[in-house]
């Protein structure tokens, strides 16, 4: 039982790490209807910027500098990619973000190098053991995961407040609802998109910091986006709480499957199990758990 809880807790916390990446996807899809394939590359780019700035600046300044870089990236993307492609079909915009992915991959590695850079910002990495009285040996919980989960929680809370209470947040929700109606009441779409991509960039920076601390900043971080995709579709492409809940379900589910179901099937089932789980739930709720129901009109 103790081991089951250990795996479950480990899985839930790992799932929160995925939702950090999924949040970026959700933000952009919510506000501009674009499935931003470049989110993984943005996470890598932000992490690379941070780790290289850390070589010359103290942490708070390096973080700000990296955030500034993400702002510039957002402005560039909006200007060069989104504005000329306004009103195109979603799959064309998706393809454009793929082009952006290639560009950011090459650009980031040209600017910042291809080595692996350890990122150490003081996050604790040691395991702790809780509930030692109840279970023999205690349940292993990694402090790093807990810190990451708390960060994600703070981020989600901050985003929720941002969306609900501020003027820009309201404007973002209006744009997400209906682009044309928002435009007709005078909300400047271009500015909104820059804001959204910037916020997604900051979210990517936070995700990159956490993942970079976990793995070291290197190219493979961009591949983490593939793990965030089942979280995304499970929670719904347009729902921020859905990203968190989806992350918890996918993270917990896949770790439990790997540890308990895996040995029967030979192991290594984590990857596809996450997708199968998301697929199974989509068959019941085709727009994900919290996604907006697509109303089709003939």
């Amino acid at each position: 039982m103790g081991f089951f809880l250990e795996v479950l807790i480990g899985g839930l916390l790992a799932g929160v790490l995925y939702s950090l990446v999924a949040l970026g996807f959700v933000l952009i899809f919510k506000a501009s209807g674009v499935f931003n394939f470049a989110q993984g590359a943005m996470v890598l780019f932000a992490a690379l910027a941070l780790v290289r700035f850390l070589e010359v600046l103290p942490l708070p300044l390096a973080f700000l500098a990296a955030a500034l870089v993400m702002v510039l990236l957002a402005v560039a993307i909006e200007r060069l990619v989104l504005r000329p492609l306004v009103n195109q079909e979603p799959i064309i915009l998706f393809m454009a973000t793929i082009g952006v992915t290639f560009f950011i991959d090459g650009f980031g590695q040209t600017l910042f190098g291809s080595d692996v850079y350890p990122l150490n910002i003081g996050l604790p990495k040691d395991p702790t053991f809780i509930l030692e009285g109840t279970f023999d040996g205690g349940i292993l919980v990694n402090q790093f995961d807990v810190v990451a989960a708390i960060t994600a929680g703070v981020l989600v809370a901050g985003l929720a407040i941002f969306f609900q209470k501020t003027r820009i947040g309201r404007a973002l929700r209006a744009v997400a609802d209906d682009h044309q109606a928002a435009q007709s009441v005078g909300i400047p779409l271009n500015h909104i998109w820059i804001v959204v991509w910037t916020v997604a960039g900051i979210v990517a920076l936070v995700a990159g910091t956490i993942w970079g601390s976990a793995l070291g900043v290197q190219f493979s971080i961009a591949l983490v986006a593939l793990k965030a995709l089942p979280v995304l579709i499970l929670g719904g492409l347009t729902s921020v709480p859905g990203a968190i809940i989806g992350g918890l379900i996918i993270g917990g589910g896949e770790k439990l499957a790997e540890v308990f179901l895996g040995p029967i099937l030979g192991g290594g089932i984590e990857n596809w199990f996450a997708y199968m789980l998301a697929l199974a739930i989509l068959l019941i709720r085709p727009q994900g758990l919290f996604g907006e129901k697509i109303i089709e009109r003939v």
Partner: protein
Amino acid sequence: MFYREAGQFKTSYAADQAIFPIAQDRWFVWGVLALAAIAVPMVASEYLYRAILIPFLILSLAAIGLNILVGYCGQISLGSGAFMAVGAYAAYNFAIRVPELNLLVVFLLSGGVAALVGVLFGIPSLRIKGFYLAVATLAAQFFIDWLFIRVKWFTNYTSSGSVNAPKIEMLGFAFDTPTKLYLLTLAIVALGALVAKNLTRARIGRSWMAIRDMDIAAEIIGIRPLVAKLSAFAVSSFFCGVAGALWAFIHLGSWEPAAFDINRSFTLLFMVIIGGLGSILGCFLGAAFILIVPLALNQLPALMGMPISTALAAHLEAMIFGALIVFFLIVEPHGLARLWSIAKEKLRIWPFPH
């Protein structure tokens, strides 16, 4: 002036229903085929065959398969690499376990197996739509990746899990030179493209396009979504499966499951979108673009005499490739095929302005 229909009278229904109604188009296509079959073997080097022409043809066939699903039927699929893998391993198992079979029969059977698997993984499309379906098809991709690594029967119990294709020979005739392999691939792909073009012009193709455009309206007028969607998955997977078998047997020779991983799926999707959704010609153009542009960009600095490190060359290649994708999408969102058809339109009234 040269490209016009004036004076071409069709006197039979068959002539009216031709794929290329305008005679100049027919001559052009025959010309391209003649060039590919006769002129190219006279001048091509081995590098051109093995690194450019053969991969181009095989990936075009796979792109045709994916275009049927994404472009004609509107179901976004990211699992095409998995269907190629199914075709490749099915062909391997048929060739190893039933050595008497003609290789063409092996390829067709492997396509059939891939079609069955495609139908199975296409069932979610009856309920899920759009990007949700795209990500759901990744389940097929990762599951099949895992299956071929884990289940040793598929790889004939080799210790490493890598397999080698047997020699390519049919009826005693061995295809051992690059020219012969190229001509074989050209024949198969040309035939496949013809079949695909005719399928898309037939009733089943129109039902796919109806589902793509407005699936509820299509259902109302009597097109059964189950039949249309699953047949699209089946036909698409058939083409991808045959392409996968060709890729494994003719291009790679020895492969592991990673040869058909998610990067392959994404590459095919890029080809289809850049080339033009809903266009068979677009598959060829997209495959040429995605295959050749990175190679050209890689070799360009060396050819221009600028010595830059391989790492920087690789990064520049990625950056320029990404920028080109965005550029082409801005210039023509409907892909290179649309640019081609606009060119033909303008050619019809050339040299007059309107």
